[in-house]
């Protein structure tokens, strides 16, 4: 191909690119010209097919390879303990919690990642309960305009401490959140996490299932 042919091809591609990249400008120019269009004295230029073509195009906010990193802090509200003998008061006051998580999107909705966090709560006996969970995080997210609604289930383990005693065991943490997309890099929102912590003991009467609700404010970095 000669240099002249290459230049012509490049020019044509640029024109197509400009057209595809800035349809609003093209449309705006056409719209603003329409009342004065001598070839269309009735002023019904809005019937042109060009605008309806673009309204049918939907671009997904997320796609495979997108990643988010979340930092959240807030309160941990004790709900109840239960075992096969009934429900029990937690004897724990509202505490503090925070966590970090990472999510990798496999498509516009589904993500997989990890999470690590921690919490502290005072007991009525003036002692302290510590929970340090970590685990894998499976997420599903849907988007409405600038609002994003990530749902997730974290499956992992939690190191738990009280006085000089400890327990290490399973944690399941379903969560729901709403985030507002501030800009392409950041979104901010509110998270609600249900912490389910079973403590299985050889003595069945000492087995307890702990339930807590985490309410946190979060910031998500998108990359």
């Amino acid at each position, binding site marked *: 191909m000669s240099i002249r042919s290459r230049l012509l091809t490049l020019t044509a591609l640029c024109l197509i690119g400009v057209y595809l990249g800035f349809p609003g400008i093209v449309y705006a120019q056409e719209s603003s010209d329409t009342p004065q269009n001598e070839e269309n004295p009735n002023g019904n230029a809005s019937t042109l097919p060009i605008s309806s073509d673009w309204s049918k195009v939907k671009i997904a906010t997320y796609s495979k390879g997108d990643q988010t990193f979340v930092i959240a802090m807030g309160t941990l509200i004790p709900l109840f303990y239960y075992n096969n003998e009934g429900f029990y008061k937690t004897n724990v006051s509202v505490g503090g919690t925070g966590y970090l998580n990472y999510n990798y999107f496999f498509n516009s909705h589904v993500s997989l990642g990890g999470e690590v966090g921690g919490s502290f709560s005072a*007991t009525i006996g*003036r*002692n302290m309960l510590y929970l340090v969970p970590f685990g894998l995080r499976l997420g599903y997210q849907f988007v409405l305009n600038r609002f994003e609604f990530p749902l997730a289930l974290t499956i992992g*383990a939690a190191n738990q401490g*009280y006085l000089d005693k*400890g*327990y*290490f065991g399973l944690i399941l943490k379903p969560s729901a959140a709403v985030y507002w997309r501030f800009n392409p890099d950041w979104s901010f929102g509110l998270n609600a996490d249900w912490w389910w912590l079973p*403590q299985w003991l050889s003595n069945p009467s000492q087995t*307890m299932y702990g339930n807590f609700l985490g309410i946190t404010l979060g910031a998500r970095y998108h990359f």
Partner: protein
Amino acid sequence: MKRILMNIALAASILLLFSCNQSPLFYNISKETPPKDPVVAGTPSKLVESSVSGAPKLYVANGRVWEYDGSTWKQTAGQPSGDFKEVAATTGTGAALYALSVEGTGSTSTKLWKSIDGTTWTLVTNNTGYPILGGIFGASDTLFAGARNSDTSQAAVLYDHSGTLMTALGPVAISDAVPGTLVGAVQMGGNYYLAVSGKGVYAADTANDFGTASPIYGTNDTKYKLNGLIALNNQVVAVGSGGYMLAGNSDSFSEVSGASDTSYPYTGALAVWTSGTDTLLLAGRRYSYSTYTNGYWEVTLSSGDQLGTTVTMNKPGAGSPTTVADTATYEQSLGQKVITALYQAPGGALGTTLFASTLKDGLWAYRNNAWNAEE
């Protein structure tokens, strides 16, 4: 991916390996009770019962002297100024209430006060050459006081002879292994028994008969580190921070099988608890490897209120009879506190409430099926 999964499995295995101590945290927390603010705060002394005021009352000191009439605790009226660390009481015709005060910030200037009516206090004269007092105990009709000389090189045990202190036992050379502190004095079967830390248990039939006597056989091993003494019907029981319990009489003592464990040092708190025909010996203990495992243990006394040749020590609530309704509730309250003294009120107007003096957490009592600080 396979490698990642293997790494995750490895990390989980390591974490599980380090998490062998699986304790019922939520269960324990569910048994907690909200602690009250103690009316007798700090580190109260041992409790004693005395009727010098005309009515039976319990007395305890935590800087001030407090009294309990069966319903409320209040500071004893008319007590002199001073930082009162200990109280003791004697019975019989010369019944008196004693209080030991420390002047200034150190413990080298001490005064022993005596009251025969519960309101008027007089100083007990001390010209023995052992001016520093520490540890006072009423053994029936006689008050014994531990003492040191001015340069703390020698210790002695003094006794009150009509308002003047006299030397009962000593001198005892003080060293690292021999603190020489008087940690208990009781009377049983016509003999007085004195427990001196680092030395052993001494016996004599009169207060001025100890002289420079040797400790009773079986009590003088320095590993015992004696810190408590109590008299049962026909046995004297001594315990120590070495983790040993000894029992015997003026002839000899021996280690109590089943009650000696170096991992569980005794605090020196000893009491006899009764309920109907049930009788328990209570002993304050700590667990060497935990800050929060303290409280006291129970030993069932056989008929005649004496220790068997081999005993079983139970945590409160674990055996029967027992002093509490629920082990877990006890463990989440008094079970975490270091107990320095135990005492069950003798009945009558004072009731039969079980009291415990704690290290820095004030005076506690067992009421309404739970241990908590006395308000």
